[in-house]
């Protein structure tokens, strides 16, 4: 055990090296630097900016800056990477205390800055984690034991609901709740008068401020852990060993809580480590909305300001927390499942170090080439971009094929049973309707998504009514423009017409059409039919919702296809083979998971944005989201494969000489299908919510395109929408909620069908 821990800690070193290089490189690639603000303020002269550039070392190439950073962080230093005036004092190689540099914007050391915030974030993370697992595991077990009871039904409905609400939206609602009721603080870590309180009251004050953020932060976690727990428990309840135990006359309680629970809890324990590390970055949105002074908020603003050394210190901190979390997960896993051995991997320190070194050298070489031959380099870069786009096209084709195959499989094996269950039918119908609407958005939407009408901003929804023997809409006038109060004009109506003639457009880019489903029978160019109201520039929310659906609904499908395929292959193989493959694959997985995805997104976006159109941004987001998403799946699949590999039927197949690929596809896949389906249906919503969250931070889809997330972000950034009650602008949130709910319900039905053990 001790050896295992030491090995793991040693493996941390190359990982940290790799991540720090990557982050440093990305920081270099994103245009501009810390002095942006100074450069653009009218009372700071360019000479001062230039002097500061020199003082901060920003005039040096990135690898020199990185080398100097590494030198100051490492306990073993060399004098050649010190500033010239300090070289004299030291030996060529000497020992020194690690120094993480200082924050340019706060002018204090990065480590003390991070130290200030770490306690707050740790408190939040630990409370939320305890809340999540403390509530979710018992609930999941009870739901499984009392499967089909009212408790199970209510719990599963509530967990659907909890999973379907966007995170930041929930945080915002929590802030509003606190503001309106006054029962709990609206934000912050402690109250304004905190300094004047007694120690006991101070502790209570902290506790009181933790309630809302930790609830918001853990709600989604509770729901998902509970669902996985319930699924696993049901799996193992019918496992052979449970049957054997029953046959032996063991009491049902003992079977449930000794045998089944211990097995069912495995994947949950594996996720524990990640949950811990994930909270560090996951808390960012909540910290931002709820104004909680944690690490996430600090690092995010450092990224935005390009306060380099704070970002680096934060990244290192995050990686260490992640590795610690995983170590904890592995140890817990070993304690919970005696069949899993820890010692079966050896560390190929040399190969790993060499590959890291190669990456660094390649990056340096690339920088050098790009700077010495900028023309050739940019030509190569744009060629690569074109190749990338072509490759992406090929990938899309492949995914479409895979989806067609999956659909065929689905229709043959799942559809009859799904349709037979009420829940399944409802979910399928809702999703079918949504996807059809997205597909025919151009025909269904009365107006183009970008058409404004400035004298009709925040127009309320107008549903057609039956008047004078035909379908008509009421005409509204803006009674008080200072608060956008619309009142119907008595007696004025405009008839609604179906299959109305409109400006010519091309359906799906190639079918020439001139007809729209619905419109108004009038010559007035300013008359509008707002089925679901209008937004701040008078654009039709209904039309925007339909166009936005194209983005929001497809992002989940494409993302999940990439994620699941990659996650299953890597996780299955590494669980099956173990050893060096497992080690390298898992370190890679950890590497991916440890890279602050948000920063990766931000940096890649600003580095690539000039090469991409606003509409192509979508492609980039899908790729980055799924590239970061597959790692989690792989990790869990590996955990399951690890214990599957020890099972008799696998060993039997091996001794019969079946190839690994065949074993994985024939034996691992069916056994892991229940997990893949449950987590797949859980992941599609995660992509939809992910897109919404990205748009919330301004990193997602951009105008003039629309997506549900973007629409919601626009509504949420405008406080008057909530305060003056323009409720229809929150409809994208409802759309997200319904879609996600339908996916979750469908997933559960599918899970019940897919489980082969359920058949007997």
């Amino acid at each position, binding site marked *: 055990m001790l050896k295992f821990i030491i090995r793991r800690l040693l493996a941390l070193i190359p990982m940290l090296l790799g991540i720090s290089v990557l982050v440093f490189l990305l920081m270099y690639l994103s245009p501009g630097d810390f002095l942006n603000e100074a450069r653009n303020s009218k009372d700071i002269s360019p000479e*001062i900016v230039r*002097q500061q550039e020199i*003082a901060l070392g920003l005039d040096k190439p990135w690898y020199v800056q990185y080398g100097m950073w590494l030198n100051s962080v490492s306990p073993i230093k060399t004098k050649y990477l010190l500033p010239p005036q300090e070289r004299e004092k030291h030996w060529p190689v000497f020992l020194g205390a690690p120094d993480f540099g200082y924050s340019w914007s706060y002018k204090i050391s990065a480590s003390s800055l991070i130290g200030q915030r770490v306690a707050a974030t740790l408190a939040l993370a630990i409370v939320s984690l305890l809340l999540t697992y403390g509530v979710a595991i018992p609930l999941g077990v009870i739901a499984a034991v009392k499967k089909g009871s009212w408790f199970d039904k209510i719990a599963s409905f509530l967990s659907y609901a909890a999973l379907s609400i966007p995170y930041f939206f929930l945080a915002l609602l929590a802030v509003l709740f606190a503001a309106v009721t006054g029962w709990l603080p609206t934000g*912050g870590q402690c109250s304004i008068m905190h300094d004047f309180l*007694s120690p006991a009251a101070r502790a209570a004050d902290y506790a009181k401020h933790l309630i809302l953020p930790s609830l918001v932060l853990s709600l989604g976690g509770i729901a998902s852990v509970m669902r996985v727990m319930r699924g696993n428990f049901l799996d193992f309840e019918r496992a052979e060993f449970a049957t054997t135990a029953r046959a032996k006359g063991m009491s049902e309680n003992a079977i449930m809580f000794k045998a089944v629970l211990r097995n069912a809890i495995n994947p949950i324990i594996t996720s524990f480590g990640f949950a811990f590390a994930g909270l560090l970055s996951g808390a960012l949105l909540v910290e931002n909305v709820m104004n909680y*002074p944690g690490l996430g908020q600090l690092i995010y603003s450092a990224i935005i300001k390009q306060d380099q050394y704070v970002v680096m210190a934060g990244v290192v901190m995050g990686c260490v927390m992640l590795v610690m979390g995983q170590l904890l997960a592995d140890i817990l896993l070993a304690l919970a499942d005696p069949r899993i051995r820890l010692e079966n991997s050896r560390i190929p320190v040399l190969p790993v170090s060499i590959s890291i070194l190669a990456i660094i050298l390649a990056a340096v070489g690339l920088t050098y080439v790009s700077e010495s031959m900028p023309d050739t380099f940019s030509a190569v870069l744009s060629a690569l971009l074109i190749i990338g786009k072509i490759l992406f096209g090929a990938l899309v084709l492949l995914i479409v094929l895979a989806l067609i195959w999956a659909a065929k499989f689905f229709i043959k094996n799942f559809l009859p049973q799904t349709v037979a269950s009420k829940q399944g039918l409802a979910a399928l119908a809702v999703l079918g309707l949504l996807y059809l609407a997205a597909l025919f958005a151009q025909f269904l939407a009365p107006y183009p998504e970008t058409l*404004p009408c400035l004298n009709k901003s925040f127009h309320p929804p107008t549903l057609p009514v039956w008047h004078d023997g035909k379908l008509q809409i009421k005409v509204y006038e803006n009674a008080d423009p200072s608060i956008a109060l619309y009142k119907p004009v008595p007696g004025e109506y405009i008839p609604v017409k179906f299959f109305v003639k409109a400006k010519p457009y091309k359906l799906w880019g190639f079918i020439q059409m001139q007809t729209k489903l619905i419109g108004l029978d009038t010559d007035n160019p300013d008359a509008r039919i707002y089925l679901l109201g209008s937004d701040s*520039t008078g654009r039709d929310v209904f039309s925007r919702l339909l166009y936005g659906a194209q983005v929001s609904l497809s992002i989940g499908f494409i993302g999940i296809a990439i994620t699941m395929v990659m996650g299953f292959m890597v996780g299955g193989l590494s669980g099956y083979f173990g050893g060096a493959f497992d080690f390298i694959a898992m370190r890679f997985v950890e590497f991916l998971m440890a890279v602050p995805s948000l920063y990766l997104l931000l940096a890649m976006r600003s580095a690539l944005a000039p090469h991409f159109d606003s509409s192509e941004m979508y492609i980039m987001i899908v790729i980055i989201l799924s590239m970061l998403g597959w790692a989690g799946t792989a990790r869990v699949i590996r955990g399951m494969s690890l214990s599957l590999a020890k099972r008799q039927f696998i060993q039997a197949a091996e001794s019969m000489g079946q190839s690994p690929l065949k074993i994985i596809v024939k034996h691992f896949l069916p056994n892991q299908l229940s997990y893949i389906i449950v987590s797949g249906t859980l992941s599609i919503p995660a992509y939809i919510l992910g897109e919404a969250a990205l748009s919330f931070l301004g990193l997602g889809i951009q105008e003039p395109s629309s997506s549900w997330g973007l629409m919601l972000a626009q509504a949420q*950034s405008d406080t008057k929408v909530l305060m003056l009650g323009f409720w229809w602008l929150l409809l994208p949130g409802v759309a997200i909620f319904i879609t996600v709910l339908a996916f979750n319900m469908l997933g559960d039905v599918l899970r019940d069908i897919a489980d082969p053990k359920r058949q007997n």
Partner: protein
Amino acid sequence: MAPVKTRLLWKAALGACALLMCASCSEPPRPERGKYPLPEGVETVQCEVGKYGGVFVLCSAQEPKTFNPLISPDLYSSQAISLLLSTLVTYDPIKDETVPALAESWTVSPDGKSYTFKIRKGIKFSDGVEITADDVIFTFQAIFAQQTDENGNPILDKQTGKPLLKYPSRYAGQYTISGEPVKFEKIDSHTVRFTTKTVYAPFLIDIGFIEIMPKHALYKDFENGTLNEAWSTKTAIDTPEKIVSSGPYMLYNFKPGERMTLCPNPHYWRADKAGNRLPYMDYLIYKFVADANTGTILFATGQCDAAAVSANDYAWVKNYADTYDFKIYERGPDTSIQFIWFNLNPNKDEKGKPYVDPVKLKWFSDRRFRQAVMSAIDRDGLIRGVWFGRAQKLNGIISPANKKWHNPDTRKYAYDTSLSMKLFNEAGFKLDREGHLRDSAGNRVKFDFLVAENSQNSTTIATTFVDNMKAVGIEVRLSFLDFGTIVSKIDNTFDYDSALMGFTGGGDPSGGKAIYRSDGFLHVWNPRQKSPATDWERRVDELMDLQETTLDEAERKKLIFKMQEIFSEELPLLYLITPMSYSGIQSKWRNIKVPPTGSIIWNLDELYDGGEN
């Protein structure tokens, strides 16, 4: 067993509840008053005599990054520093003139180049050390201190050949007039004199920018070369008492991400008519919030005492005024300006490729093209629909909020697509059969448009602009980028067609030199010109030079008015709108004097808690 356990649990739960309830119910300790006698040079304030007490809470979306006045501070740091350290003179927004602060009085020499300041007698820093001419001299020594090598010779910047400053700050540039640092000398223990190379009209305003630093507290750091690191947020967190103050407040504590608490400076140099030393309030607390929206919600629900309310939020915040007992003052238009501009840079990059496509540059450089685009922007619609009527059209480069310098009679552009078409036609542009605008050579008019992401207002303006342009046959491609990328494009690589941006405004027009002058680095459409590219830019440069050396304010005003006329006629910037601004404050605070522009709580030290009516 079970009942006992349950009872225990109940007790614990009750106890926890009680603790939570009382977490917000204790009174802060009252600061000690009247410990030190008033100094000889005390300023007696002519405000209504108030009473001591009360806590004033403000929300701020940003935190101070440093408490060191020398480090180029951002707005939020300077705001905090200005509460702690006083300047020689200060600006009174009600009188709209420079008034005494640490300096009791001043005289200007007949040639207008030298200014002598008399410092108040007997006034002290918060730690009881007297404020003298030495502190002023020390402050300016620190600003202009140069880096030296081992022989004591100044180190020169390799690029510019100018000596490198030991503590680079914005002030060095500010107090360098006509290429030469202002001369400063101590006449006696309470008198200092500044001399400029040439007459510089805004000198008295500018001298009020730098807070006087306590020599006794910072001299050691100055000697050691660590002055830039002194008085950082770390000092504020660990040892707030080390940040010596001369302003109305002292730092009580600083909790990054949470709040900053200030308490009265017992040695402050202002007192009321009854001889009570200001400030009246017991504590001033800045609560740091994530964004402006949170701050507005907190104000509207009575949890903080004052806030600037945006035109966007005014519509709903006013509904809460009676419930939470606050008043909102309408403050007229904002001082900032917002605009769209075209890249007019005629130069080529190192490879000889022009920054702007010559075809486009030809369009953009034509004044009629810019005027035509301007006439096609539906600003009235934006004001009506998006701002609910709470905004004004901007007609020139200085906002109407800057009442002293704004020229109301510049050329105005109404929303008029037919006029726009007429201008386009005059400049040789024509609509083709499909309704696309083409230039005389038949090129279709289309351009890229940069907008900073993450701003709801910019997004609304940008999407409306795109639609407005479509109506006159122009295709605009929106490109949302982060602020850093945009800055590097407009300042460095110059590879863009057009962009949307804004500048903060207000104050003396000399502060906008970098924008107006052709060699300015914020002359965004074509920055840092070696010699003016156009006649009208040359004319603006001349006007700017002239107004700086003119002491007669009426004359200066004429020059600045002329400059604005040129900017509105030539339209290098297409001005958009300026929203109305509003200030809200809890009704219990008295002595509120609302100035025509700027913060409503500029006289925090005079405010007192008058309780319920």
